[in-house]
């Protein structure tokens, strides 16, 4: 079983310092994977969501930074909807998200279902193992809260 490397622990510490949110890393990898969960318990969500704030995080491979963080993120409020239905899709469901079980097993969050956001975070600018940081990944994630809810 992998334990977070010093480099990864330092990266999470730097993320907390730069983001202003207290992130923590799971003590072990998610079952069946070599991914650690990095999350913060109190993060503001999008104003249009029915839940104003809660946990937010993402998963990071044990061999970070050679391997990039997973190209998605999650919030812990799995029942979150749009306050006002999106007129394009005529739906209150968040766009391109899915409730997932077993995604954060092994973290301090417990084995709870979370809402996973698909978001092509690194499709335009490839992850550079010697340059990019978890803070870069985090800023990609929260851009989702500033974009339209539909394509």
């Amino acid at each position, binding site marked *: 079983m992998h334990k977070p490397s010093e480099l990864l622990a330092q990266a999470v510490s730097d993320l907390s310092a730069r983001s202003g949110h207290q992130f923590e890393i799971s003590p072990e990898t998610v079952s069946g994977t*070599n991914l650690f969960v990095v999350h913060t318990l109190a993060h503001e969500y999008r104003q249009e969501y029915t839940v104003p704030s809660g946990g937010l995080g993402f998963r990071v491979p044990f061999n970070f930074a050679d391997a990039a963080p*997973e190209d*998605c993120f999650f919030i812990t409020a799995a029942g979150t909807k749009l306050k006002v239905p999106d007129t394009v899709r005529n739906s209150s469901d968040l766009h391109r998200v899915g409730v997932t079980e*077993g995604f954060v097993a092994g973290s301090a969050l417990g084995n709870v279902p979370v809402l*996973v956001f*698909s978001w092509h975070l690194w499709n335009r600018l490839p*992850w*550079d193992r010697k340059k990019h940081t978890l803070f870069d990944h985090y800023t990609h994630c929260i851009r989702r809260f500033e974009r339209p809810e539909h394509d």
Partner: protein
Amino acid sequence: MTDHRISLPAAELSQEVHIAIGANTWRELQATLWAKGPHEACCFLLTRPSRGMVRTTVLLREVLWPEPGEVIATPRRLEISANYLSRAMDAAIDAGPMVGLCLVHTHPKSEEFGEGAGLFSSRDDWYEQRLFPTVTLSREGAISASVVIGSRGDVDARVWWRDNNRAAAQPVHGMRIVGPELRILETPASPWRDHPDPAVMDRSTRLWGEEGRRRLQNIRIGVAGAGGTGSLTILALATMGTGHLLVWDKDVARKENRHRTAGMTVDCVGHPKVIAMRAMAQSFATAEPFTIDVIEDWATTSEGLTRLKDCDLVFCCVDKLSARAPLNDLAYAHLIPTIDMASWMHPDRNLQIDALMTHAHVWSPGIPCAWCRETLTSYNLTREAQGVQQGIENRIPYGLTLDQTDGVEPSVLPLNMLGVSLGLMEFMQIALRITTRTPRDLKFFLPEWELDESDRPVRNGCDCVLMAGRGDTWAISPVSMDS
């Protein structure tokens, strides 16, 4: 005239000491220095350490050429100005911690004195005893060096470092010229010996000559992984006359390994794979002496990566991409050519092969690395780390379920053998230079029945160029394959 030799402050930095330099830099160095003949010529280079378990290598990288007037040369002596030394020291300081200086100079042929010997003269000793305390005492953690090149290409070298509060020196045992091939120049301190009964390998010697035989007998080769490809590699290297092997694998042999692993008898099941490899290699070895050290651990742990620096050449026989990342970086940063081999096959629903690939890829300066070739990408590494949840980010948000798979792919002996054979052909080229060009990545494909060489160039700005020869100053993250 009596040659009054002074004794240099001797100490032991490591059991074995090497100097290594990229082939392009070495060529540039030789061309420029010999153009000054019949006068002696010199230059400083920046050094970085590569510290293994039993061997320290001083890596030479940037050349700091003297400006006009900074060196006064005659056929018998050199005078280096304080300005040149000061400029070189500044460059070392600017380059960061652990960076030292190497002084390279020539002993050219001249009408008056004949051939110049690649040996330190008493004047060299006298001069260095004055120079190197200045260089080493102010650069803690750095290892500096001195090389003399004779007119016939023979070399002598030594390293200088800070030992407590004094400068100490140790003779260098060998000088590696790397990229893409590996040349090793023996110094007067070289411990290399020829095979006591060369007749046993007469047929091979007819291809690679006595020099090649001597090289095989003495080089140290690391094999990372003792599974399908690793076992065949070990069998071949021992048979071919390789003198020293280091083998890593933490796995225990299972009955399922036997049908595609060389040397795995029924008795080996339940025991570490490396124990079987040691027994097999010792049975087949033709080198004399032959040594094999087996390590029941992964080659990519912190300790493994340190010990790999003792090797002259490495075979990468691991089955995970994550382990390839540090091994790829080690090849370039520490100038240790590495041959990566891998096989992959996919049967269709009717159990007919619809895609098969085996490849052997040289990682060495001058050849595109695994990141250039995109065998390694951060995305591929992440995908591998996702394990049973591979591709989850593309599926869950759209309500799709994960593919159910145990992640175990087919593996057969002939395919592994083909990959290893390609790797061994590359090995003969790198270590024994059997032809004029080292190939890049060689791949065999089915259903095309095609052997192809990658034509991808070194990617612009790739780390393999930036990190080449940076040694211990380039951070490489260890990877444990425990799961």
